[in-house]
């Protein structure tokens, strides 16, 4: 195991402990006297109507799908970017082909009207 990742693990532990401690401290020091009116959800000053579970539009899902594709692409590009200085022009051309194919995909998505939010 690399020591770097031990440090990251320690950072994770401390990074969880400190904010958790803040919340626990606040919970200990602050009063807690719930009553139904105080605890009711605030929505425009009137009673909440219906369930919280509202139907979302398909656009959220579509953007997440397109994002996923480009996210995976950029992951592939990181090792490529690191070695460019050693490998020279040939690697650059490879990368340009790789990105070009994906850009064609973006153009297709755009053309099909999938990039419209409304």
């Amino acid at each position, binding site marked *: 195991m690399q020591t770097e990742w031990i440090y990251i693990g320690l950072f994770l532990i401390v990074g969880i402990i400190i904010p958790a401690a803040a919340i626990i401290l606040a919970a200990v020091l602050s009063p807690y006297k719930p009553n139904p009116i105080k605890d009711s959800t605030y929505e425009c000053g009137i009673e909440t109507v219906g369930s919280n579970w509202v139907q979302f539009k398909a656009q959220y899902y579509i953007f997440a799908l397109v994002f996923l594709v480009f996210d995976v*692409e950029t992951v592939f590009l990181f090792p490529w970017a690191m070695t460019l200085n050693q490998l020279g022009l040939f690697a650059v051309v490879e990368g340009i082909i790789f990105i070009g194919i994906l850009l064609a995909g973006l153009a297709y998505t755009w053309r099909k009207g999938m990039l419209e939010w409304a």
Partner: protein
Amino acid sequence: MTVAQIIFLITAAVILGSAAMVVTTRNLVHAALWLIVTLFGAAVLFAMLNAGFIAVVQVVVYIGAIAILFIFAVMLTRREMNDTGPGLNKGWWLSAVTSALTFGGLVWLLQGWDGLSKVAPALGSEFDAIGALANALVSPEAYVLPFEVASVLLLAALVGAVYIAFQRKGEE
């Protein structure tokens, strides 16, 4: 037992426990959140195996993109927050027997394998795993073609996504 083994056992327990929660919890969003714990555990295992790049990619792609996609999908497709009805169907014993047999078979098969007790050779401090990976991906003697084909695969995924979305939009 070494420290690495203890960390491994804890991580493995967390992965198994959260994976069990994914399939048993009735709340769909909770299931997605437990799935994220499982995926994060896998990232920890990768980091322990000196595969830092894969570990980070696991977090970036699985937690940063796929988990979010799951949650969006849950929000999109179901109007009920809680799953109802029995969790098991009539054939539950069949799958139980199958999985027990598979597990037993694996244990029996792997008993004689020496790979389990092997210790990986220590990597030199100068060993640059990402540099090696990058060279393998880009250099013409190694995996250039798969690298470029990956791009075509991603393109196919994008076209597929658009196609599915097109139908979904039509339904609205």
